[in-house]
């Protein structure tokens, strides 16, 4: 019996019935029994309302009348009655239960806890420290000033400990330990350092940090009346610190002036990673999954609203971009003297709405008159970019933000501004004189947004010469066309170039040195615009002039040689390019030493040539050497490193190291996204290469996405066409084709080819590449004549320009053979396929997917010509190679498995065929789609296997499905495969004795086009 008195305490589940609730239970036993009572199944709400209804009725009556009532009300439902009865009994008993208000009941508990774990009073000891006083509030509780209790020295630290007064304990302690762990991993001069940590006798953790005595950043700047440049300098150190944290995977999430102190010595210190999170985890400060828990963790102070990013307010994933945003607000405040949002009222709600939707007026407008001039333009753009409401449109990192500020300070163009004539021209005028080639660099960048970094690099290493003449010349050019009409870029560029070429001859006849330089410049520009014929002529003249003027060893000659080689490469004249580059390399090594950046870029160019010639090992070595030099040079020229990585990636892709290629290319993209304008052609190329690699790895949809991005940008930049647009079209066509969308692919290839034929010489490898691919697609769509013609053209061209040992030639051989084989022209096909296979083996080795592809084609041919034994051997080898070389789930594996499966079926070994076909079907369903033609072919083969294994129900499903899907595939190939499906269906139903069905399908077969 449990005693109940008016001041009754709640029932104690001590299991000691009959004793007073204060009797000491066995240690632990008390807890267990309560827990035991908790896990019970609760009735459903419907059930409950029934119970309640009856209960209500019963409670209204006197006890004597209840029995009869229950009898009636619960007729036929004894369970109901028993439930109600039990409850009734409890209702009667509970006189004193819960009558004491909870607050009173809990009072001793609260008091005890607050006493035991109250805030540290002065003098309290924590580890080797003694608390002096409270020093402030952080993101997660109070911070205390403490001193070390030694005789030797009184070091002051900032002490943080877990203190109640906030929410859930486990949660709190976990967060606290996270902060400690985060701080322990950060070691940076501008981040408050963790000194040591421990656990109090109560079992609660604490840690001691470097005690920073300083002024919040904004006040510091105001008190000392710092100039804009000085403020920017301070801000840059903050960016550095934040970037460091990000690199260690820590997102601060609460950046604001109060957390950024500046000491008396002018040192910046970043504080309070209290609500910091390790990057990759989402969620707002301290939130758990359930909203209820989020409300409970309320004691963790919500991030300071004024500096919070839109996604933080919405409770979405918080990333480094959120920190960038907060930095943006900080920068705004530093520059303009006030915050970006100042809603009329001071409501939290209004401020939230402003941050989420409100427009920000540029800092220059918000600032005072003195600073407005400085802020307008670059700084405005930089701040607004950082404050973009879309995280992906902000700077990708604190570093990128800092970088742009540094560029502004150096009078270089910042990435936040659009790439216009006037902007860049203006920038040039303000920049310090850097010599002749600086002027020419301007010309290039003005005329098409081309990569100017290489130029700048060279410029920095040169001395000024002939500067004035060249500048005057260029200024003269500019004066002719109004810089304001910047829209029709290409047209005016060509005009300028023509005019330029004429004037070089005429106007600079007496200055051969300048002539030579400018010829080089113009040649390069022509090359960049795809006008290779002109470029070639100009450059050849420029080289000749340079040789005549300066002899064989001048640095200028090396420059001209490289410029010329570049164009040669684009024209596909590789051997010539190779020799030119080697000459240049020798000169540069002599003139500048082996570690010079110009040597590195020459090495890279040479590597590219070797690659195109198919000499992969030498290419690899050259690229790596270039990469090493660039990485070592002056702390790393990042864009050059990116270029090297990209080249390496291309090479690895070609030689089959797909994963390696993917990493290298991604690294290059990463650097470029950070440093370049989002529409920059170099970045586009990177994305394209990444897509190509994606295709090789079988990630078609991702690749398609990338290519579409590239194409959109290229088309906008060059509406009249350009080799780069063709590049993008071709790339996109590849991804689309790989997914089986042949008609779409065909039209894309056609467009690409048209552009390439327009701009490039006819044997140019890119043109031929498109010819090859187009031919294959035509084959798929049933244009056999077109396919054969295209393939013959491609093969002939590559044999001519690249020789037999080149990958492209082997591809063409393989393709032609495969097409013939598919058409049944086996005697023509076989020699081609065997030749391709032999070439591939000898050039690529035995672990290459292209070899497997050849083996597969050969295997299929052998199967079709009745040489099953050899076919099996060949196909098995193909599968082994592909399984070894390609990632799991690659569509090529499915191709081979299907071929092998079909063979094994025909040899009566369906048991072996089945697992292969199951896997192939899974891959194809996933990568190509469940209703794609190729998938249907595999399904059919699987159906055949299952029929042979006497599993007719399953077999029927697959056979029918295969027929259904192939029925809607257009073109010759589709028709052929559909008929094969019909044939198999007929065979299936016949063998099962289902003559009705067999006849039906036989009729369909007869009426179909043979």
């Amino acid at each position, binding site marked *: 019996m449990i005693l109940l008195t008016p001041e009754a305490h709640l029932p104690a589940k001590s299991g000691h019935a009959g004793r007073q609730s204060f009797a000491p239970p066995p240690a632990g036993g008390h807890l267990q029994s309560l827990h035991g009572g*908790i896990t*019970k199944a609760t009735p459903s709400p419907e059930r409950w309302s029934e119970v309640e209804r009856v209960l209500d009725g019963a409670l209204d009556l006197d006890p004597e009348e209840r029995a009869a009532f229950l009898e009636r009300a619960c007729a036929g439902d004894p369970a109901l009655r028993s439930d109600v009865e039990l409850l009734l009994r409890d209702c009667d008993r509970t006189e004193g239960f819960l009558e004491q208000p*909870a607050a009173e*009941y809990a009072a001793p*508990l609260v008091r005890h806890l607050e*006493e035991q774990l109250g805030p540290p009073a002065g003098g309290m000891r924590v580890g080797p420290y003694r608390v002096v006083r409270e020093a402030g509030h952080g993101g997660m509780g109070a911070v205390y000033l403490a001193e070390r209790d030694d005789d030797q020295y009184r070091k002051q630290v900032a002490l943080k400990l877990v203190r109640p007064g906030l929410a859930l304990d486990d949660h709190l302690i976990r967060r606290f330990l996270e902060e400690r762990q985060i701080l322990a991993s950060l070691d940076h001069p501008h981040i408050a350092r963790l000194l040591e940590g421990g656990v109090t006798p109560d079992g609660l953790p604490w840690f001691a940090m470097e005690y920073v005595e300083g002024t919040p950043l904004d006040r510091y700047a105001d008190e000392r009346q710092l100039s804009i440049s000085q403020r920017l300098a301070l801000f840059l150190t903050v960016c550095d610190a934040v970037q460091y944290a990000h690199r260690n995977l820590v997102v601060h999430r609460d950046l604001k002036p109060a957390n950024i102190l500046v000491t008396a010595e002018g040192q910046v210190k970043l504080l309070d990673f209290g609500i910091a999170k390790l990057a990759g985890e989402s969620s707002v400060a301290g939130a758990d999954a359930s909203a209820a828990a989020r409300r409970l963790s309320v*004691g963790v102070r919500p991030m300071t609203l004024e500096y919070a990013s839109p996604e933080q307010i919405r409770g979405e994933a918080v990333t480094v971009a959120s920190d960038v945003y907060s930095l943006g607000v900080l920068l705004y405040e530093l520059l303009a003297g006030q915050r970006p949002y100042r809603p009329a009222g001071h409501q939290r709600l209004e401020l939230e709405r402003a941050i989420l939707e409100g427009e920000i007026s540029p800092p220059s407008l918000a600032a005072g008159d003195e600073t407005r001039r400085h802020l307008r333009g670059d700084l405005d753009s930089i701040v607004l970019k950082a404050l973009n409401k879309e995280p992906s449109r902000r700077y990708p990192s604190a570093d990128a933000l800092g970088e742009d500020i540094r560029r502004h300070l150096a009078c270089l163009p910042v990435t936040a501004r659009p790439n216009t004539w006037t902007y860049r021209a203006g920038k040039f005028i303000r920049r310090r004189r850097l010599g002749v080639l600086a002027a020419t660099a301007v010309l290039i960048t003005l005329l098409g947004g081309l990569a100017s970094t290489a130029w700048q690099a060279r410029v920095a290493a040169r001395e000024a010469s002939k500067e004035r003449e060249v500048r005057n010349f260029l200024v003269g050019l500019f004066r002719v066309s109004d810089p304001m009409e910047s829209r029709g870029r290409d047209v005016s560029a060509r005009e300028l170039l023509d005019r330029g070429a004429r004037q070089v001859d005429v106007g600079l006849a007496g200055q051969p040195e300048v002539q030579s330089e400018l010829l080089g410049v113009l040649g390069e520009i022509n090359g960049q615009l795809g006008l290779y014929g002109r470029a070639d002529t100009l450059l050849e003249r420029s080289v000749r002039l340079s040789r005549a003027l300066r002899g064989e060893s001048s640095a200028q000659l090396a420059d001209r040689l490289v410029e010329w080689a570049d164009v040669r490469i684009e024209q596909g004249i590789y051997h010539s390019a190779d020799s030119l580059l080697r000459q240049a390399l020798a000169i540069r090594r002599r003139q500048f030493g082996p570690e010079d950046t110009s040597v590195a870029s020459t090495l890279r160019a040479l590597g590219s040539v070797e690659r195109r010639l198919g000499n992969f090992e030498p290419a690899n070595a050259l690229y790596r050497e270039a990469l090493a030099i660039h990485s070592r040079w002056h702390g790393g020229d990042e864009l050059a490193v990116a270029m090297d990585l990209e080249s390496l990636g291309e090479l690895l892709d070609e030689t089959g190291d797909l994963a390696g290629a993917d990493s290298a290319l991604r690294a290059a993209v990463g650097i470029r996204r950070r440093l370049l304008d989002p529409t920059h052609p170099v970045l586009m190329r990177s994305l394209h290469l990444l897509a190509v690699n994606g295709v090789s790895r079988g990630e078609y949809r991702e690749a398609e996405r990338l290519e579409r991005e590239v194409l959109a940008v290229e088309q906008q930049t060059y509406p009249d066409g350009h080799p780069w647009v063709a590049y993008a079209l071709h790339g996109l066509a590849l991804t689309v084709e790989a997914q089986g969308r042949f008609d779409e692919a065909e039209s894309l290839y056609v467009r690409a080819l048209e552009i390439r034929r327009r701009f490039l010489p006819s044997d140019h490898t890119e043109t031929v590449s498109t010819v090859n691919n187009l031919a294959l697609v035509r084959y798929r769509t049933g244009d056999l004549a077109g396919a054969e013609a295209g393939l013959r053209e491609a093969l002939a061209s590559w044999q001519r320009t690249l020789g037999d040992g080149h990958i492209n030639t082997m591809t063409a051989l393989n393709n032609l053979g495969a097409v013939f084989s598919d058409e049944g022209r086996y005697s023509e096909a076989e020699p081609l396929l065997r030749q391709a296979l032999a070439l591939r083996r000898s050039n690529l080795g035995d672990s290459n997917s292209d070899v497997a592809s050849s083996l597969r084609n050969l295997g299929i041919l052998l199967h079709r010509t009745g040489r099953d034994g050899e076919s099996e051997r060949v196909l098995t080898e193909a599968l082994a190679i592909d399984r070894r070389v390609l990632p799991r789930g690659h569509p090529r594996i499915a191709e081979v498995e299907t071929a092998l499966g079909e063979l094994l079926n025909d040899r009566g070994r369906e048991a072996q065929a089945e697992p292969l076909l199951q896997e192939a079907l899974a891959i194809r369903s996933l990568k190509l789609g469940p209703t794609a033609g190729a998938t249907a072919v595999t399904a059919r083969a699987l159906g055949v296997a299952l029929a042979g294994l006497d599993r007719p129900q399953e077999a029927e499903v697959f056979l029918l499905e295969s027929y259904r899907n192939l029925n809607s595939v257009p073109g010759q190939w589709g028709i052929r495969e559909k008929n094969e499906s019909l044939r198999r269906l007929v065979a299936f139903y016949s063998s099962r004795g289902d003559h009705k069905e067999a006849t039906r399908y036989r009729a369909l077969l007869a009426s179909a086009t043979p």
Partner: protein
Amino acid sequence: MTPIDSNDSPETQRPITDLLLDIGAGRTEAIDRLFPLVYDELHRIAHRVGSNERTDHTLGTTGLVHETYLRLVDQTRVGIQDRKHFFSLAARAMRHVLVDYARRRRALKRGGNQEPLRLDEGVTAIDERAETLCALDEALTRLAVLDPRLAQVVECRFFGGLTEEETADVVGTTSRTVRRDWTKAKGWLYRELTA
């Protein structure tokens, strides 16, 4: 009553009152924003009271929620409806505050707390209360699934310390129903805790 802390300036009152009015106007998202503020306030009170023995203000006063109401809300701007919303919120907040303490005690005991296990009556009574509060909280959560109104009545009466009339206001029914609800709920809870 001695004020616990002078946090009742118009400055702090304004946002809270605004939020309360928002709730009345049907903007339910304001509930999420008001709740933490009320929670904070109640917690602050509990904290001060608990840590200072010599106060003539004991935690057990049933007027706690009322007092908080007077302190946090600008009376001149709100009506009876708004008071209702506040009470409902405050009762829930009070529940959270107390259950937090209970859980903390449990966690401390479990989490390697160095405190030696004493057979001292005072201490074990505290553990008992902590356990019971947690069990009650959990049972109440289950009751809310079955019958939300009953659970709310318990929250108002037991945790919030509201009178029958005040509870009836909040829940939207009569005192008589509240009384009946209270009986049923207690019966159910009792059953849950002792089964």
